[in-house]
């Protein structure tokens, strides 16, 4: 079954508002990455976390490996934040660094 469950699948935000995306993991993960996929299809690195919380501008991400989830918070959303957001995680066992991706969240920021 799916090891990474991402929600919501779609999200609409008015400019200036905020929300959170979440990924739940069905197995223990070593680290998580969050990406934004832009209109050209490029995956832009937002965060890499092995634990704890990181913040970058209007974005903040948390990874709790014990409780098997990660979140991405967006505040004061801007039009350029529109796109598809993915979480991806690598398993803690086996020493394998391959990423398993969530299904993605399509974010639309509305003026």
């Amino acid at each position, binding site marked *: 079954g799916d090891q990474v469950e991402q929600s919501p699948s779609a999200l609409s935000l008015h400019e200036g508002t905020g929300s959170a995306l979440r990924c739940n993991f069905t197995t223990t993960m070593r*680290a998580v*990455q969050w*990406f934004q996929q832009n209109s*050209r*299809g*490029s*995956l832009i*690195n937002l965060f*890499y976390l092995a634990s704890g919380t990181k913040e970058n501008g209007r974005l903040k991400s948390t990874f709790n490996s014990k409780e098997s989830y990660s979140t991405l918070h967006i505040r004061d959303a801007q039009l350029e934040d529109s796109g598809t957001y*993915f979480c*991806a995680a*690598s398993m803690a066992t086996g020493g*394998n*660094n*391959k*990423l*398993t*991706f969530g*299904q*993605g969240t399509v974010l639309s920021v509305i003026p």
Partner: protein
Amino acid sequence: NAGVIQTPRHKVTGKGQEATLWCEPISGHSAVFWYRQTIVQGLEFLTYFRNQAPIDDSGMPKERFSAQMPNQSHSTLKIQSTQPQDSAVYLCASSSDTYEQYFGPGTRLTVL
């Protein structure tokens, strides 16, 4: 730093033809990964190399797909006898010992 380079950006092949996709990792990165993105399956892992050695090819279709990394500056993904269901965006990523992966822009393969 040019980032991960993938060529070609777009490739159209006829059913049954061969397609070779190229990836140049970020200089100094020791690991190279290949993924595939489709609307139906999303982003899925294909194979990866560390220090040019194949580590895990569990995501590769057993027939027609092969990957190589002949030197530290490039990797290739070859698809023989392409089928319409091979149409996808093929993404290459590289990482250093810090494990964070950086992705190239992808190659959009269309099999007619």
